[in-house]
């Protein structure tokens, strides 16, 4: 879903965009991919992926399949598959994920734990690579 520079490939793949021009308050539940470039005060949960932009501020937990964080998150982050923290990311909270990538400069104040199925995912990917 995401391009190399950590941004959604196109608008039509994204179910929701919380842009810079809005503040969202409350608990947001979705099924598709969500981009946060603005402000969210509350939890964010989706079956799809979440992209948190550089200027975004999230005060609440995030739960999704893949999560890319480039902005500020004050809350727990749970990525079922993959979590990427860019160099401008600041996470104050515990993170849980199957796979992780952290760029130099990212800030994490919290515990980091890997999900039990992370080994399975790595095995599956290794198998796919061989095929």
């Amino acid at each position, binding site marked *: 879903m995401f391009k190399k520079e950590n941004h959604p490939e196109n*608008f*039509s793949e994204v179910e929701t*965009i*919380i*842009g810079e*021009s809005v*503040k969202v308050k*409350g608990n*947001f539940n979705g099924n598709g991919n969500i981009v946060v470039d*603005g402000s969210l005060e509350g939890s964010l949960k989706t079956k799809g992926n979440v992209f948190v932009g550089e200027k975004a501020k999230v005060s609440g937990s995030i739960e999704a399949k893949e999560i890319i964080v480039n902005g500020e998150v004050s809350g727990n982050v749970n990525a079922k598959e993959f979590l990427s923290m860019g160099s401008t990311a600041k996470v104050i909270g515990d993170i849980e994920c199957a796979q992780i990538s952290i760029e130099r400069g990212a800030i994490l104040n919290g515990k980091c734990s890997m999900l039990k199925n992370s080994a399975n995912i790595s095995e599956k990917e290794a198998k796919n690579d061989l095929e």
Partner: protein
Amino acid sequence: MNLYIYDDYLKKYGKILNNIEVDLHKLNLNGKIIYLEAIKNLERLLKDELSNDIKTIIAVGNNLTLNKVINAVLKADPNNSLKSLALGIIPVGPNNSLANALGIKNERSAAEIILARRLESLNIAKINETFFLGEAAISAKGTSLSIQDFSINPVEKGEIRLANILLEDKLLKNGRNNPQDGLIDIFVYKKPQRLSFFSSQNLLIQNNNSEKVLVDNCLEVETPAKVEIIDKNINFIIGKDRTF
């Protein structure tokens, strides 16, 4: 049988109307004509006509004409006859963004499109007690939108558009507007590159400045206003150049 509903303001378009009638006659699309100015209660009249085997109703006019017809048809529909009914529009004069969205660019192309009778079953939105096909717009300043467990509060000036069918603005058409998905597409923006986008089956609009919501560029509705997609679709006659 076809029913043509002519709006009040068409008197000054006499020559255009003549041409339309000639085109319809040539294509054997004649039907009963009703002039809105002569009618006190369109809903009651349509109730009778719908039980008289009317299969096609064509609004001749603009966005407001089509809106009047949609509202009257939905309120008149006694036996759920909408499944066998088709609505269309012959656009005359300005403020015809709905016709444009349906792929009917002008009155000269309308007759051929009505003859081809290509139908799409489209969602209908409702704001308070008014039904609409296109979009509802309000300034972002002082407005908040409540959706299920969360609220959207714009933090800068701009515009909010709640679209069943998004009208006119090509900049916003990035592939996410579908009047057949049962959802209202919500666009909050000042500049398209700073767009916020959500979708929901229903929502509540509130405005601190008692600003009104402009519906289909033709009528105003007071806030607070509840917006939803209703559970009835209507078949519309569309052209190949439809925008959705």
